[in-house]
């Protein structure tokens, strides 16, 4: 059964702004072939169902509608693993200065 999400929950909505084929003239082929999508976060104005139409009030006070995608979406970006090619740089450069 589809998950119900309560009014007042912080969520992310998505919608298609321009369908594939309706894109601006002169965009490259691979961009032309995919839709222009938009995602925005806000507080649900009424109970909604995951994957279905929903309405939020955004931080700027606007009311926007779209498909309910994610509940309380995390910030998932990070640093990733150390990069060996950079790890060596500091020691190499310090050795050059010390040697003077």
């Amino acid at each position, binding site marked *: 059964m589809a998950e119900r999400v309560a009014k007042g929950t912080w969520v992310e909505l998505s919608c298609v702004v321009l369908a594939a084929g309706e894109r601006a003239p002169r965009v490259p082929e691979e961009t032309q072939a995919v839709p222009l999508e*938009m995602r925005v976060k806000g507080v649900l104005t009424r109970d909604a169902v995951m994957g279905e139409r929903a309405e939020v009030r955004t931080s700027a006070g606007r009311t926007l509608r779209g498909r309910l995608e994610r509940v309380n979406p995390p910030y998932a970006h990070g*640093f990733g693993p150390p990069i060996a090619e950079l790890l060596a740089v500091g020691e190499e450069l*310090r050795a050059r200065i010390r040697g003077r």
Partner: protein
Amino acid sequence: MSDGDAYAQVMARRGAIVRGSIGLDYEKYATGVLAFDYEGLLTDTGYDLETVRDIQQRTAVGNTPLVELHNLTELVRSISRPGKGARIFVKDEAANPSGSFKDRRASISAHEARRRAFEGIAAATSGNYGAAVASQAAKAGLRCIIVQEAFDSRGIAQPEIAEKTRACEAYGAEVMRLSVGPELFYVFLRVLEDTGFFNASLYTPYSILGIETLGYELAVELKEREGRFPDVVLTTHAGGGNVTGTARGLCKAGAAETTMIGVSVDLSGLHMASDRDFNRKSFTTGHTGFSMPFTSWPDRADVPRNAARALRYLDRFVTVTQGEVFYATQALAELEGMERGPAGNTSLAAAFPMAREMKRDDILVVQETEYTGAGKHPLAQLAMARQLGIRVQRGDPRDSRPGESILIPEHPEQLGVEEIDLDQVRRSYLRHAVAAVPENSSLGRVDIEFLALETRSTVSWVQEVLNETPKTA
């Protein structure tokens, strides 16, 4: 979607929407077919340098530390010929409230929006500028909307832009995240129409006047501390605002003889509007994808007349590779104890080879840093590049290819710059100018003089090039 929201219809209303959202009558400044009164457009805003300094002081913007990089200077001298190796300073712009020089740029727009009783402020930007607008809006008690190009059709977000999303939301802004494409501007126009918010475009006079304090501060402080103006200022160059504002500020401080060098990351071969290329770029700003088109024709911006006109101010224009900037970023962290974001270190990478060729007692100033953090970091960018199959290894950066390989230099002697021929850029500008002349119009004396100013050349050179340029350029 109603008919009035269709792409072509909204774009057809762009002039009226932009006019209403900035409140500047650009037409008033036209003096010829192409010519316009650039200085008048800036002066009439009423924001002179002292007023801007006062506003920025009240919002904790500017007066950032000017730091001498003793260890990097020592490193450069270790690979320079006797008597060579200039002193390197950096203006630590990361000390601004939202972590970059973009706070200067946003501060006057936010002030103007508040003065004119707008309810909110909006900007179309995926970069530090979004965080700056959101931060300044928070201080001014304005609502804020940032429209970003943030992810590709597979839903993969560029790590640096993901961090900017977080930062804007942290300052209380609504962030509209879009997939790849130039139609971001269309969405932005709809936001302006829907909200009636002030358009904090990167290219208004307010934006440029806000940056003048950067050039002014560094020149005045250096003069006080060292008794001289900088010989060279290196400026990371994208849309042209950083070069324009900094150079104007230097002039206002009296440092008219300082050489202004714009530096961009070379991303040649990667298309700006390509869904496929989007995440193959390990830099989201300060790169040739912006600086090339904007230097050769600034009026492609989201305002009728771009106040950022870099060709008027550039003495030289050079590029560096992605690998060199990551190397310089690592060097700044490990030799100077300053961990800063990679995009802001673009001009730092060029400082190595440039300072090597300058005299020991010359002074070179790198005019910005930016904050760093998750996503906005060499590790995040290189990890993403590897995931996409881009080769990351040590090697001669000259052998790298944007989107295919990133080569981290093996030693500092490998850092260099590629010189962009400014004469070619000037000729490109003039071809665009000819193409912009409306049918049944022709350029008059005032236009030729304007084009000479725009290209920092002479009336006779402009005429000579125009005579060679076919009308259907």
